[in-house]
């Protein structure tokens, strides 16, 4: 549905997007993750044909965005970072303009405006000037604009920014339901959101692709389990003596939590990066340390993200 091949955007000496390639299948929701300035918006602007690429190609539904822009753009609904609304227009008037701009057949225009207003719950605001709307409502009108003409592909640049928690939940539900009929690329720097909504995740940093996979796979293959959390009745000194008897422990530390009276929580990491929970269990039994809890420390997408994108930034 969407094919991006070797996309490059060069500003003078600076490469904002560096050789980015990926595909999005029909009906898929792709989460586009990256720290600020990673090139997310630049990439989206190139996919929608707003900006030109220095090198590379984007194909939407079989149409090259640069060779057949009008056909390709007809398949796309785009919600940029800042909703592209005219402050001096009324909501209904603005959406009607969008139906004309997107060449919705004349007889369907009225119904189309009503449809998107219903979908985004802005019907009761239809006669308000957009400049009088709150940020949340502007965002809704912006998304309504992207949905005009029911395009197959939706490109949404941080659609939940500036919304309150209630609206965020509602917006996510809406995006998920839209995902049944539309192919969606959604950028965000909120990992929880991507995890909850998207089928696959593309992480980019410094304009380069870091990884593209399902959220679960990313956590499994890249994050994996690196350690084990245990709750025992041994103090720090005693625990150190006991754990020292296992040869392959790379490091351990006390966790800042209070598991209960006389209990202590520790994180243990192994040199072979495996869990080794069986070894721990037998060790504690042999050393008469009572084990109250033991579980693998699961990495979240958040940890993976920070690990993958933060390394270089941490040094600067």
């Amino acid at each position: 549905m969407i094919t991006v091949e070797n996309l490059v955007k060069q500003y003078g000496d600076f490469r904002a997007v560096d050789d980015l390639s990926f595909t999005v299948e029909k009906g898929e929701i792709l989460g586009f993750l990256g720290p600020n300035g990673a090139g997310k918006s630049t990439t989206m602007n190139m996919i929608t044909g707003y900006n030109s690429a220095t090198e590379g190609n984007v194909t939407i539904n079989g149409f090259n965005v640069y060779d057949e822009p009008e056909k390709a753009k007809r398949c796309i609904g785009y919600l940029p970072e800042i909703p592209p609304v005219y402050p001096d227009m009324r909501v209904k008037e603005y959406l009607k303009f969008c139906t004309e701009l997107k060449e919705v057949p004349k007889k369907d225009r009225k119904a189309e405006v009503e449809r998107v207003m219903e979908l985004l719950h802005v019907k009761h605001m239809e006669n308000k000037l957009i400049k009088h709307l709150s940020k949340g409502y502007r965002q809704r009108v912006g998304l309504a604009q992207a949905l005009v003409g029911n395009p197959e592909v939706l490109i949404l640049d941080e659609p939940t920014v500036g919304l309150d928690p209630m609206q965020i939940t509602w917006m996510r539900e809406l995006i998920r339901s839209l995902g049944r009929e539309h192919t969606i690329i959604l950028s965000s720097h909120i990992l929880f959101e991507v995890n909850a909504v998207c089928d696959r995740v593309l992480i980019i940093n410094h304009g380069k692709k870091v990884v593209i996979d399902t959220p679960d796979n990313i956590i499994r293959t890249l994050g994996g389990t690196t350690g084990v959390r245990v709750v025992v009745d041994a103090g720090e000194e005693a625990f150190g003596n006991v754990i020292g008897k296992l040869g392959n422990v790379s490091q351990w530390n006390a966790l800042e939590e209070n598991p209960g009276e006389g209990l202590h929580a520790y994180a243990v990491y192994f040199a072979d990066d495996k869990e080794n929970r069986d070894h721990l269990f037998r060790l504690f039994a042999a050393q008469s340390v009572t084990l109250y809890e033991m579980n693998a420390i699961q990495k979240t997408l958040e940890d993976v993200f920070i690990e993958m994108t933060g390394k270089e930034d941490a040094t600067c």
Partner: protein
Amino acid sequence: MLAIYKKELRAYFTSLIGYLFIAFLLVFIGVFQYMVNLRGGYANFAYAVHDTTTFFLLLVPMLTMRILAEEKKQRTDQLIFTSPVSIERIIFGKYLALITVFAVAVGIICLYPLVLHNYGAVNYAVAYSTIGAFFLLGCTYMAIGMFLSALTESQVFAAVLTFMVILFTLMIDMLVEMLPTGHLLALAILLVLAFIIAVITYVMMKNKIVTIATAVLLIGGLLIAYFKNAEMFDGSLARVFGWLSISSRFQLFQYGICNFSAYVYYISLIVLFVFLTIQALKKRRWEA
């Protein structure tokens, strides 16, 4: 294209700007008609029209400054340039809207000679050929204003630039008279101009090879021409600046000379600046 056209027209007529533009234009021309024709007793309406052209200085930027700068500022250009409408059609739509607002005012101005007819004999041919030239002159300035609005996201900057450019075209005839006529000085000034063009080329294209090629071609061409035939440069400055004199072409109309070459000149400039506007926006897609 129709969608953009309708949107722009609505923007002018739901805010005050469209009405203000038309009102000011009609007031200015009305005042001049009163002074020249009614009080002054001249039967030639073209004099009143001619005096009004100075006010394009204020009126044109008022209308054109927002036309593209505002879209960029509000980021609504992301909507229109990702819609299935091509850049060309967007610009045509916007330019047509500008012209339509102006045409409303000119349409009303067309009634003035009829009013004047009540007070004496009016030469309609002179009056209407001048009004036609007035319309094209305004359209030329609008095309320039639209182009300058495409270069920036600040409406104020676009307005100031437009003001300066129109002022320059109005003053050019005065400047030409002050220019030296000697051929060595003319060469020196033309060389400076060639250098400025090369600098502008570099600023616009950021390409060293094209810049150097332009500079070598222009400066080399001038020098070769000078050493072959220095007399060619006598009065050359006046000729070069004469090409740029948009307003001087308007002069002849008031004396009853229907100057068709002026119509062609204005239409060529309109085509040029609409084209340049489209190119400026296409170029921005590469840079932004």
